[in-house]
């Protein structure tokens, strides 16, 4: 029951949900939730392959670094969002369509 395919299915679901969130939402923070989902699906895949394919712990390490990078990404991304909000008083993604203020 607990097999590679079930794990792949779950991570597939997470990935698809992330994509859906990123396209459907117009709120930047909500889109970042989608990014977290996508990164988690990738990390889960690495851990699952480690368990079911080669039992090599470097997959775990990869997942760990994905988590680390996700944290850094969230920190910087949200800081940009907040700065954006301070300038434009909105976090609607369509208001961020210009390269120049």
């Amino acid at each position, binding site marked *: 029951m607990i097999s590679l395919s079930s794990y792949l299915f779950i991570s597939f679901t997470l990935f698809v949900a992330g994509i859906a969130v990123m396209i459907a939402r117009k709120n930047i923070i909500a889109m970042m939730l989608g990014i977290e989902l996508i990164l988690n699906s990738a990390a889960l895949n690495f851990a699952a392959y480690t368990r079911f394919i080669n039992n090599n712990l470097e997959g775990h390490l990869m997942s760990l670094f994905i*988590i680390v990078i996700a*944290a850094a990404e969230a920190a910087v991304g949200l800081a940009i969002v907040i700065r954006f909000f301070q300038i434009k008083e909105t976090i609607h993604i369509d208001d961020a369509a210009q390269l120049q203020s």
Partner: protein
Amino acid sequence: MTSYTLDVYMPVIILMALAVGLVVVSVFVAQILRPFKPNALKEQAYECGEDPVGTAWSNFNVRFYVVSLIFIVFDVEGALMFPVAAIFRKFVAIGEGAVLVGSLLVFISVLVFGIIYCWSKGDLDWVRSFQLSEDQVNQLKGSEEKA
């Protein structure tokens, strides 16, 4: 390396279930026992007796964010250092401790650099102190003299 089965996680699940159960049961019991007479005044948010003005969900100071930002960086660095710390004694025992000390110290020093930066830029001050310009000081003095 001793192997284990997934049974070790059973208490975790049971405890979480107990927590949920406790909440559900207590709220349910209270539902039966307690009185239920709502009125508009009761349901008002408490604002020292006045009528509440606007919503509480407005934007807050950025300082909260900077604090949580520093926190998350430390959190992640802690998470990376835990496995290294766990093998430290073993490496010291086989005489390779210097490598670990070196890499840990480099890691920690980078961490310290970050906190020093935030400190020097005043991100750690809850109340940011700023220097009054001379005009402002004079203005203040003037107002004091008038008073």
